[in-house]
């Protein structure tokens, strides 16, 4: 077992464990990037990392601050235009895993990265979709990463930027989406999963320091639990060492 660790370190380790060797991953910046590089250093040396900036098979020598850092280019397998990234790789069905985060995630895995409040008179203007709307539609599965709180996990998001499993009453099948959508939501307290059949997010696994009721308090709807709750192992000393000394030595994202 590891020593003391931060919530971000736990999330990065849990996210890394979601990746299988040989997969093709569409990587976002921040925690997803830490997770992918941690997985690559551990059990998944053959991950192919694709960034929306056009770098394919990137092998970043330093932690990129942005999704278009020059370190993603140097030594990568391919650099292509963004039209190719979105048309051939993403819409073309070549991406196995996509990572997404958001200011709000709702009961059906819909994500809001556009506005808090109304679109025309927003309380908070967020960055918008970027590539997220299409990652959510086309990646074979997506993994969501977000800190758990009632504001971040409302019953329904203020604005659907990236579609989950039920959008204004319509299922992914009715909407003609090819990817299977969010399968797992990794938070700082627990893992939620999408329930087969209903498409609803349910509690699937607790962290060593979490309780079922503590998680429920941080979710804005009546969160149901899987019949058998798994428990997630804390970061190992090896995972923490890699994160702290190799992957994010300046603690840009590990707060």
């Amino acid at each position, binding site marked *: 077992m590891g020593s003391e660790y931060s919530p971000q370190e736990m999330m990065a380790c849990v996210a890394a464990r979601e990746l299988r060797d040989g997969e093709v991953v569409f990587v976002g910046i921040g925690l997803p990037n830490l997770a992918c590089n941690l997985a690559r250093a551990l059990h998944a040396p053959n991950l192919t990392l694709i960034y929306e900036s056009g770098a394919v098979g990137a092998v970043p020598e330093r932690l990129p601050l942005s999704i*278009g850092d020059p370190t993603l280019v140097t030594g990568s397998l391919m650099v292509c235009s963004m*039209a190719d990234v*979105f048309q051939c790789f993403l819409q073309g069905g070549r991406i196995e895993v996509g990572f997404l985060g958001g200011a709000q995630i709702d009961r059906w895995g819909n994500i809001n990265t556009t506005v808090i409040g109304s679109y025309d008179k927003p309380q908070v203007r967020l960055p918008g979709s970027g590539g997220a709307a299409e990652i959510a539609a086309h990646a074979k599965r997506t993994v969501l990463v977000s800190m758990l709180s009632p504001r971040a996990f409302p019953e329904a998001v203020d604005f659907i930027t990236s579609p989950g499993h039920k959008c204004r009453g319509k299922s992914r099948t009715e909407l003609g989406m090819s990817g299977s959508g969010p399968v797992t939501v990794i938070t700082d307290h627990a893992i939620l999963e999408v329930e087969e059949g209903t498409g609803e997010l349910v509690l699937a696994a607790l962290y060593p320091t979490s309780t079922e009721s503590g998680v429920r308090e941080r979710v804005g709807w009546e969160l149901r639990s899987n019949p058998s709750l798994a428990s997630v192992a804390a970061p190992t000393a090896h995972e923490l060492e890699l994160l702290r000394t190799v992957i994010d030595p300046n603690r840009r994202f590990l707060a």
Partner: protein
Amino acid sequence: MNAPATTAKVVSMRDAIAANVHDGDTVVIEGFTHLICFAAAHEIIRQRRRDLTLCRLTPDLVYDQMIAAGCARKLVFSWAGNPGAGSLHAFRRAVERGDPPLEIEEYSHFGMVSRFSAGAARLPFWPMRSYAGTDLPTANANIRTVLCPFTGERLAAVPALNPDVTIVHVQRADAQGNAQVWGLLGVQKEAAFASQRVVVVTEELVDESVIRGDPNRTLIPGMIVDAVVVEPWGAHPSFAQGHYDRDNDFYVAWEPISRDPAKLRAYLAEFVFGVADRAEYCALQPGLQDRLRATERMSGRVNYGF
């Protein structure tokens, strides 16, 4: 056998902007993280252009500065943040509080790429699989659907974007504007072909023979280029692969500057209005070039013989 220059396209940044960017124009300064031409944006600010429709996937610091300086009437975009560092606060003040008012038209990245692709191909629209289930079409009446004449499927469609002028920063170009880029390519080719006028800003002016020595690297042909500006370090704080690194420290520093209107005004006063051109901008920051200059990681060669 090479064609000599027929026109004098090589001009100063001041002349290029004066001739090609007018009040009310639809302007694109593209570059996805890589090769964002801040030098051109600063000159547009200095020349006090107004009522511009600014289009870019990521408004980035470059349009945050232009919005703060009062150049923009409208923003067309797909992701408005300061990646890894925070928000674009001039943009947010405009959208959240109308300070100053700013019209917005919003897509996903793929939607913006597709709009440029349609513009470059002189098609009125581009089909996509996207937006089903999202609220973006309710926020933007220009996200529509089109019916496939073969399968009957309903796909998303976005309209062509044909800017008045596109400004593209490149690593090297010749005097005719034949421009070569390596590393991240973004959507520059599509934006340039979609545009009425094209300004190429280059780190290095090279002889035509350099371009002809590796024709597969040419991203933009001189025939669609109206002006060529030679402006080393013209993309800072963005980067130019093989020339200088991204100034991540400045991106992080932008968060508190952008958050405070007084600091932002002071920044523009010192680094934009307070200098005549990019050379003076660089001279203001003495350690900058040593800190960011690229190390050497040379590619191999290939044989074009037959």
